[in-house]
């Protein structure tokens, strides 16, 4: 398996809104902590070192 980089969300606007909603009312540090927990939860869900390595590369090489 390799990292899915093509659109994969059925309703992108809804998913994005859900992400913002998860952060609603949080201070910046609280939001950062939430992001950290999210990353760990999603990493475990993916559970594939090769896919994760591709994701880390993509994240590092953008931004």
């Amino acid at each position, binding site marked *: 398996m390799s990292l899915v980089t093509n659109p994969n969300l059925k309703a992108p606007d809804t998913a994005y809104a859900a992400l913002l909603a998860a952060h609603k009312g949080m201070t910046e540090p609280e939001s*950062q*902590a939430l992001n*950290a*927990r999210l*990353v*760990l*939860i999603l990493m*475990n869900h993916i559970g594939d070192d090769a896919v994760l390595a591709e994701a880390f590369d993509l994240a590092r090489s953008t931004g």
Partner: protein
Amino acid sequence: MAYDYRPFPYTAPPGLTAPEPRHKVVIVGAGPIGLALAIDLAQYGVPSVVLDDNNVVSVGSRAICWSKRSLEILDRLGVGAKCVDKGVIWKVGRTLHRDAEVWNFDLQPEPGHKMPAFVNLQQYYVEEYLVTRAMEFPDLVDLRWKNKLSSLTQTDHVTLTVETPDGPYSLEADHLVACDGARSDIRGMMGLDFDGELFEERFLIADIEMQGDFPSERRFWFQPNFHPGQSALLHKQPDNIYRIDLQLGWDADPEAERQPDRVIPRIEKAIGHRDFRLDWVSVYTFQCRRLARFVHGRVIFCGDSAHIVSPFGARGGNGGLQDVDALGWRLAAVAKGHDPAILNAYDRERQHGADENLLNSSRTTRFMSPAPGAERMFRDAVLTLAAKAPFARPLVNSGRLSAPCTYPSIGADDPQLPTLSRPGSVAPDAPLPQGWLIDQLGREPILLAIGQPAPKVAGLKTLELAPTPQLQTRYLGSAPSALYLIRPDQIIAARWLSATPAVISEAAKSIWKDRT
């Protein structure tokens, strides 16, 4: 009760009055590693001189957790039963975050092993037992207390100067083994330096005596309410002695922190009462570093002089005993005239072992003492999640306990046989109709034939065994029978479903080669 430190007697060495003949092996340092090596060599009939600048065993408990593999090695050296009898056997480790348990592990190995997973035993007892054992070889182990190495030079042999209460003398040796600990003078004398990380973290380590009824468990706290923002460890030892490790932070002043008026209130908070006696206190700075190479001509580094790790994971003392295991039989062979190139195999294998220990212990240290920023954030996220989500629990790292590495091996292998016993691994123990398999292995190469007759190979010891359920799981897997060639250090060298005497004989010869 407190340990009774009895000084070992100093006697004036012969070299003070007349030059001594060149020794085959001089070991510098009578810590657990130097002593174990001297006994190992003696059991091979090889004499050694052991120099130590001090004349008592380890002050303070220091290394307390001895792994199953270490116990097997100590058993081969003749002190295993004593260590297990005296030690506290434990198998449960609990990790707590803010006083709630987030994760626990049970080290109970499957049944059918002579030795338990771990025992806790103060380093001073292990050293005491080793000294007593070494003294059973008066012709082979020459223990010299209050003999401090002060200089050395190396040509085709090593020349050393040794300081004693009666003045200096000089010694010559074919090989010098540096077992002189983390601060190794020999490293300094040879201009060698450690590579690796020094973590900016300090721990207060204390032994206390109390009549508590704490269970024999390892307890580790992240950010406990009794020690906010830091971490703490509690471990039981024999004689009602408990070991408490408290993280201090890098800003702490080590001298001030070790004063009883600072230490006692902290411990009181940790255990909830003041009914204890302080036995020993020390402040420990973490390092995860090693020498680039362990063999430098005729000088060989072994134990803490070669590598140091942070204590969580018990990889210091245990890692050092595995060095002894990989060195003893090879050095004994060299002392009897074998090509010294075989020592390169020790160097290579133990660098591999040290790297595995360093990797594990620096990961633990990172988790315990995260750098500000992302490291800290993810660490805290893991701890917060762990209470609720099972997936996060294995990410909690309060120490990954010492386990022997599998050496990279080029010995013959068959993929049908179990991974657990692949070449390069320690031969797994199993019960036999009489006694234990582990007691039948080691000291010299042996061919194990399980479920088939052993091919006859000149000069090679063989052992034929009928399959038992444990031998089936640990050595055969789905195969009906197999052959295992096992080294003097109980490491599997090669294995086959079947093999001709010629093939086995070649493999047995290569045990004695530097296989690069």
